[in-house]
């Protein structure tokens, strides 16, 4: 158990250290790595476009109001080289997303992990795959 925690911490350090290097913009200037978020909702749109692939998710806030969140991934080029495709995530998919919210408070975030309803995970974290 202890060992696992150490590994997690080491991995987190790595993400942090490498974060600013791998996108066409500074990750640290856009996203708050100190405030991770997790949302559950329905994919409303997937944009397989550069400089970043994006997907949008309808998320109910505690009051029941639905907000549409904008999640950033790596570029399609990076995702394709990792073996993902434009069909890996589809409109209507029920997902859980963990990520880091934009520092300016927009309903926008970098997606770290995306988990489908069947537990399958899609996409890698964009600031670590860079590009």
């Amino acid at each position, binding site marked *: 158990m202890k060992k696992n925690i150490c590994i997690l911490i080491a*991995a987190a350090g*790595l*993400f942090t*250290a*490498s974060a*600013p*290097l*791998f*996108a*066409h*913009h*500074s990750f*640290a*200037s*856009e996203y708050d790595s100190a405030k991770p978020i997790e949302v559950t909702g329905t994919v409303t749109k997937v*944009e397989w*476009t*550069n*400089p*970043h692939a*994006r997907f949008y998710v309808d998320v109910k806030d505690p009051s029941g109001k639905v907000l549409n969140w*904008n999640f*950033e991934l790596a*570029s399609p*080029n990076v995702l*394709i*080289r*990792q*073996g*993902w495709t434009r069909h890996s995530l589809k409109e209507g998919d029920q997902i859980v997303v963990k990520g880091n919210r*934009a*520092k*300016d408070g*927009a309903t*926008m975030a970098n997606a770290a992990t995306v988990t489908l309803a069947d537990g399958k995970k*899609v996409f*890698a*974290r964009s600031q*670590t*795959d*860079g*590009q």
Partner: protein
Amino acid sequence: MKSLRILATAAPALFLLASSLPLAAQAPAGAAPAPARAGRGPQRPQGPTPHFADGMVDLSGVWNGGGPVGDIEQGLPKGEHAPLSEAGKKMMAAKQSKDDPEANCLPTGIPRIAPYPWRIVQTPTHVFILFEGNIHSFRQIFMDGRKHPDDPDPTWYGHSVGHYEKDTLVVDTVGFNDKFWFDFRGHPHTEQLHTVERFTRKDLGTLEVETEITDPGAYTKPFTIKFTASLRPKEELMEYICQENQQDAQHLQGAAGTPQNP
């Protein structure tokens, strides 16, 4: 026909080495395997430096790395700093992250590189460097012995002339505009910038890129950075049109990046 020599080069090797570490751990099951990765990054192909039939060094291939992304000081010996002048320090201090041209889908200039593959094409008269990403553009380097124009118009990639010194491609560039940044941190330059790049293929999979930077408008003395590009033999350049869906620059906050070469 020896005219079309395709030599590809790419983006920041050190960065890619680091970046691919988490990638390797997260590679999707059943995904088409990328080039073999071992240990801390993709394994570089092994072998001697290739040459064309006439003996000229062959720089062909798709490369990753070879220049600064986040911090140009990562190309200096650890702990050393770029010799900014007082004017240079002021320029840098005034930069806001949201204004980084690269984040706004404008070219990296030289020596900055985007974290995307790139390819070199060698011909008898020109060397072209084709960039996949940011931006999806190219550099042209004149190899016909011409000189720089007396008063070149300032441009993003400047006016480049090149020659070979044994196995090293030497590229001299002037005529830069002052718009691009050297890195996320916003290391500045002026139109007085003059770069001399030395591209040396140390072996089949390794391209060393050493760049001497002279700019009395922002630095007290010339300085030289060194980065390494890695060959990605199974990759091809892909389309990358940054302007298509750029939504980041308007959300970037605060001053430009922090030092990454402590």
